[in-house]
């Protein structure tokens, strides 16, 4: 991992006051992986082995419905975390796929190393609390959006908060995430301002 990548990683864990010596140990727990577009980083039916931090690219998290069609649950992109967290923490087979929608560069840490962080640094408990609170609030907010908003309202709300990285991925993934048909997404894109 180069210094720039490590700096990005440290800023994601900004609550942790590492000493210089601790930083060396922390850095050694992570390794870099690069995958081409279309790679299944995590397969449904397998246990998630890593917690990822994204340096480059966009990844999509999806589940297959009964017809075998992809239902998008979320995205990850540069500067943020990635992985199938439930499978990673519980060490149970993942019900979801994580796929690279763009060529991706990721930092990864395995479960033993991840858990050792909480033992070595009490501040990681605070980080963990914030992190999982954000995940929970995000899921709750999305549930409310899906259950209460019209397709147009969902489209506008999403596009207003959508990072540029997601605006270049195939529309069908965004449409699925917003629980609408690709045709509806396309129509809203051409007729709605936000």
């Amino acid at each position, binding site marked *: 991992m180069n210094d720039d990548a490590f700096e990005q990683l440290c800023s994601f864990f900004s609550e942790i006051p590492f000493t210089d010596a601790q930083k060396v140990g922390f850095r050694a727990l992570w390794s870099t992986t690069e995958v081409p577009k*279309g790679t*299944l980083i995590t*397969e*449904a*039916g*397998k246990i998630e082995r890593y917690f990822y931090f994204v340096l480059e690219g966009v990844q999509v998290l999806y589940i*297959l419905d009964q*017809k*075998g*069609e*992809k239902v998008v649950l979320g995205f990850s992109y540069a500067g943020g975390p990635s992985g199938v967290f439930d499978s990673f923490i519980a060490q149970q*087979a993942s019900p979801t*796929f994580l796929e690279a929608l763009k060529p991706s560069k990721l930092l990864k840490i395995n479960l033993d190393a991840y858990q050792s962080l909480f033992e070595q640094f009490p501040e990681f408990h605070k980080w963990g609390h914030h992190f999982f609170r954000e995940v929970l609030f995000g899921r709750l907010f999305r549930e409310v959006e899906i259950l209460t908003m019209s397709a147009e309202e969902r489209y506008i709300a999403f596009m207003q908060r959508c990072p540029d990285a997601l605006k270049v991925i*195939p529309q*069908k993934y965004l449409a699925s995430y917003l629980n609408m048909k690709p045709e509806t997404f396309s129509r809203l894109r051409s007729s709605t301002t936000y």
Partner: protein
Amino acid sequence: MAALFISAENQIQRLNFLMEKIGSLQSLPIDMLTSAPNTQAWSILEIIEHLNIAYGHYVDKVSDALNRAKPIENDKEPFKARIWQGFIINGQRPKGQTRKWKMKTMKRFEPEAIDTTHGKDHLGPTFEQFQHLHGHLKEAILMGRHKNLRHMKIPSAIGSIVNFYLPEAFEFILCHAERHLVQIEETKEILSKKEL
């Protein structure tokens, strides 16, 4: 009959489940693995041997077709199986925990008698071969996600009387294995009751 749409991701998910399930059988007692519920039926180990033999007929054909297939850049839509092939595939697919249309196995797909006199360790190669062969199938499905398989045709294991495009072949092989997984569960249940 409704059209059968085939997606690689769906196949990968099911194959992961299948490989995990077969792998977990290795912890069963040797009697459970090698006893048949009746003289006409196979033991669990013989069923796994049969799956190894069946996929063994496809390994080279699949590899060759994949090597000839051209790479594609774009996202692939699910593959629509042809009517006759869809009918054959669905004939193999178990319905829940039921096997439809039970059929006699052709001689060349029958497992050979397994020597069980050397204890459980002797049975390992059957499981290893299963994981190896079905690991090949998984690699093939994964590779196929980035290739144009629409015109890659291979004969089925019973000969050119039935041919498959590669996604159809993968689906047939999977459904066949899932069918035998149901048979394994039935065998386990019968043997467990006999023990009681």
